[in-house]
Structures are given as structure tokens and as C-alpha cells.
């Protein structure tokens, strides 16, 4: 284990009855990193973070979180981890301000203000909207400035505006150097917020890396397209095909599509500028993490069809 690792998981195994949910999973989170645990419903994400927090007893593997063993030091560890759990509520008649004081021992007007809940601090939990509840859970996860924050599906059920405001808050945490483990099946969320993502499926790690790395590895090619003009004839097309990173150049009825790596986009642009002509309909498209992960899951399905346990796919706990 490296000195800076906040979370180290090796070979984690967990079954519910005869159903294997986590199957030899490895995971590291370094200090100051925002790591996204991504995967479909039932992939074993929530079970993994519950084991990390000492809320569930693993069947096998070793875990080390903030230098503690979640099994033997669960009580101490939980005080050090700020967490937003999936499907965990609060008493109906508990008021917002009371909840914050209960979890932290003090009122935290700044955080309530930041998450737009200051006006609601005297409101009962039962009277809050879905978005307000999620924001309150986030406040409770952050209120003690914990060295590790675990957020499980935190923007689930939020409207787009509320989602953006929560994202902005997470980006602030990243700027502040907090260590965050974010569990999500929303890939745009992971791409936007995470330094590194770990893709899991059927309880195993498929791959991990920065969102850009995964996109490069698994995403379809980046493309640049434009329409040729009469002045700029077909003679430039072979030159485009020789540029670094370009894998394919197609022309159909004057419409040109250049495919290749992310870098190829820059080289094609430079070539056009050097030729003294920027096509008015120039368009570049770089695949998103969502495109990349869908492709990753498809590849995985092909390569491990024999090993598949059908009840795990898309199953919810």
C-alpha cells in the first residue's frame, strides 16, 4: 500500500446468499483524488462502498481505509468518512437545522447557504423535495470536513438545475483537495467530476483510468468533417491521410470525414489553417465517456459470454 492511498481494496468478495455480487475487486483511492466507481445497476458498486465503510462484512479480500481495517475499526472509521448512502433516510419530523446539529454538534449556516437550504432550516425532513433531501444528505456528508467522502448516486432524482448545483459543489471539493469516492451510473457525471474512473461489471473491475484515457482506449474514433469547396480540391485529401493520428479519410459527394485519435483533430485543424482555408461547416466530434463505456460493456459481453451470470445483469439489490 502506498503512503498516500486513502482506500486500498484487494480481492474483495461478497455474496448475498448464493448470488455473488462482488468478485475479486481491487480498488485504490489516493489522497486528494476524486475517483468515480461506475457501472450499471447491480454491478456491485454500492456493496463495495458499504464494505469500505464497515457497514457490511466482506466474504473475502483485504481492505484498508484511512489506515484502518473497516471490520475491526468500524466505529472509528465511520466517524472519519463523510457519506451519502443510497436509500438511507432521516426521521420525518427531524428539521434541517436539527439534522446538521445532530451530525456535527453545531449549526453550519455556511454549508446550508451554499446548498440553498438556509431558508429551509426549520423545515421537517418529510416536507423537503427530492432535490432538497439530496442536498441535505450532501451537507451532512461534508459537515465534519472528513478526510474521505463517499457519495453514492448523489444526483439521483434531481432536476437538471439541482444536478448542476451539486456538481459545482463537488468541483469545489476537488479544488479544495478533498478525497472523494463517487458512485454513479451517470457517465456524464463521472466524466465531468472525476480525476479517475473505475469501471466495474458483475463485481469485477473492467478497467480504470482518467475519463480521457478510457475514451481513447474504448471510444470510437474522433472525427473531423467538412465540405470541400471548388477552390480546395481533392488534392489535399491524401495529405490529410498522412497526418499523425489519422486513421481514415473518406469523401462522399464533397463531404469529407477524417477519423482518428483525439490528436488528429488538432493536426487536421492545423493543416487546414496552413492551407489558408477554414471550411465554414467544420465540425469536430470527440466521443464521450458514455460512448466509451457502452462500447466497453459491449466488448466485455462478447468476451465473457461463457462466464456470465444472467441474474447479475441489471439486477438491483
Amino acid at each position, binding site marked *: 500500500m502506498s503512503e498516500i492511498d486513502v482506500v486500498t481494496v484487494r480481492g474483495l468478495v461478497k455474496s448475498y446468499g448464493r448470488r455473488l455480487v462482488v468478485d475479486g475487486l481491487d480498488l485504490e483511492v489516493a489522497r486528494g483524488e476524486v475517483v468515480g466507481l461506475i457501472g450499471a445497476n447491480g454491478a456491485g458498486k454500492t456493496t463495495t462502498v458499504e464494505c469500505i465503510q464497515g*457497514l457490511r462484512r466482506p466474504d473475502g479480500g483485504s481492505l484498508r481505509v484511512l489506515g484502518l481495517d473497516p471490520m475491526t475499526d468500524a466505529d472509528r472509521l465511520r*466517524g472519519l468518512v463523510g457519506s451519502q448512502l443510497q*436509500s*438511507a433516510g*432521516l426521521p420525518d*419530523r427531524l428539521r434541517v437545522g436539527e439534522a446538521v446539529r445532530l451530525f456535527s*454538534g453545531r449549526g453550519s449556516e455556511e454549508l446550508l447557504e451554499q446548498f440553498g437550504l438556509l431558508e429551509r432550516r426549520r423545515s421537517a425532513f418529510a416536507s423537503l423535495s427530492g432535490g432538497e433531501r439530496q442536498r441535505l444528505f450532501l451537507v451532512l456528508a461534508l459537515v465534519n470536513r472528513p478526510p474521505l467522502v463517499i457519495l453514492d448516486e448523489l444526483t439521483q432524482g434531481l432536476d437538471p438545475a439541482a444536478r448542476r448545483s451539486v456538481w459545482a459543489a463537488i468541483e469545489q471539493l476537488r479544488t479544495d483537495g478533498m478525497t472523494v469516492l463517487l458512485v454513479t451510473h451517470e457517465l456524464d457525471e463521472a466524466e465531468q467530476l472525476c480525476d479517475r474512473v473505475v469501471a466495474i461489471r458483475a463485481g469485477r473491475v473492467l478497467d480504470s483510468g482518467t475519463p480521457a484515457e478510457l475514451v481513447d482506449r474504448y471510444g470510437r474514433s474522433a472525427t473531423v468533417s467538412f465540405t470541400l469547396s471548388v477552390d480546395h480540391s481533392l488534392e489535399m485529401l491524401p495529405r490529410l491521410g498522412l497526418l499523425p493520428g489519422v486513421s481514415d479519410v473518406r469523401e462522399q459527394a464533397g463531404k469529407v470525414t477524417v477519423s482518428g485519435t483525439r490528436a488528429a483533430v488538432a493536426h487536421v485543424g492545423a493543416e487546414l489553417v496552413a492551407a489558408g482555408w477554414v471550411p465554414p461547416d467544420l465540425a469536430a466530434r470527440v466521443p464521450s465517456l458514455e460512448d466509451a463505456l457502452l462500447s466497453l460493456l459491449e466488448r466485455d459481453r462478447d468476451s465473457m459470454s461463457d462466464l456470465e451470470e444472467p441474474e447479475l445483469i441489471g439486477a438491483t439489490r
Partner: protein
Amino acid sequence: MSTAVETTAVRSTAVGRLVRIELKLMVREPLTLIFVFVFPVVTMLIIGGSFGTTPTVAFDWVNPSQWYVASYLTVVIAATGLIMVPVHLASYRERGVLRRFAAAGFPRWSFALAEVVTGLVAIIVGSVALLAVAAPVYGLPSAHHLVRVALGFGLGSVAFVAIGVLLGTVLPSARSAQAVGMVLFFPSFLLGSGGPPPHVMGTALRTIASYLPLTRVTDAVRDPWLGTGTATGSLLVVGGLAVAATLLAARCSSFRSVSR
């Protein structure tokens, strides 16, 4: 990293906050207010005024109104242990409140402790309210063996709060806790405390009543209070029940406090 002493201090204040907030939430819960604070007072006023004030054989030759005043403290105990505590606990578990508390670093035992404290405070407040209403209406009988009354009341309260924690821990939802709680509460109430005196019951009913835990608690409180007996046997049974229920509740709640 905190020292052990600091950690303990932080935890104990967290547990203190939990107990305080649970007490606050208790009085915001309509089911608690009705069953623990209102129901015993109203039924005591009605039943206590139904048989006059002349001592008869059915009431062990004591004033029937005072016989009921001495009986009704255990209605408060039963309402707390069979309805308030189990419904509260089961609803918290069902809705993931316990998971959230556990994940936030509240020790596993702290919620059970908060429930015990809240239950005992509810019983004390409900009993004081009951006596405060009874005093000007029917008068308070003087206690013949105050220490035995206090022991019976205290051990009976602990026993029923522990039974409540046990029920709330093993029952899967607030709805089922409420159903089971009502099914246990009303026969206990009618046969073991606030209903007809045992002397007027038929043999079958009297036999059933004698097996109800609440009957034993009522005997252990009422007999030494009114001087109709010492109820040593019942006091021992209630003491045993308190110990057994507490151990069982502690064991079950430490295993199941976090699971859904």
C-alpha cells in the same frame, strides 16, 4: 488523529445529541402522544368512575377508583413498550435512518440506548400526567410499601422497553410493528391492567391473564401500593423478565441495527 480520550469524548457527546433529539422527536409523534399520554388518562377517567368508590370483594375490599388509579401506571408502560418503541424503531430501520446514523459514526449501541432512555422518559412523563389528573378526580391512594412499588414500576418499565426494542428489531416494517403492537397491547391492557378486576373474570380468562407479563407488572405495582399483598412472586418474575428481555434485546439489536 484523535487520542482515545478525545474519541470517547466526541462519541459521548454525539450519543448525548442523539438522545436529546430522540426525546424531541418523541413528542412530535402523534401515535406516541395518543397512546402513551392521552389513552391511559382518558380510559382511567372512564373506568375509574364506573364502579363507584365503595370497596367490594371484586376489588380486594379497596375503593374501585383508587384500585384503578394504582393499576393504570402499567397501561402507560405497556403502551410505551408494545406500541411506541417498536413502531419507532421498525420505521427507522425500514427507512434506512439507522444505516445513516451508523454510517455517520454513531456507535451501534447508541441508538438502542437512545430508545431505552426515550422509552423510560415517556413512561415517567406519562405516569406523572396520569397521577396529576387522577389526584384531583379520584384522589391518590397512599402507598403501603413504597420501595416495592418503585421496584415493580422500575423493573416493569425496563422489561417492557426492552421488549419494545426486541419487537422493533425483529419486525420488518413500521406497519407490521404497529399491527403486532396493537395485537399484544389490547389483550394485555384489558386482561392485565385496565380492564375488569381478576375476581369477576371467568376461569379461562383469569388463567390467560395470569400468563400475561403485564399482569405480573400490575400485581407488582398495585398490591404493595394498596396493601392487598406484597406480590413478591410477581416482583421476581418481573425482575427476571427485565434481565432476560434486556439481554435478548441487546444481542438482537447489535446484530441487526444496521441491516434493512
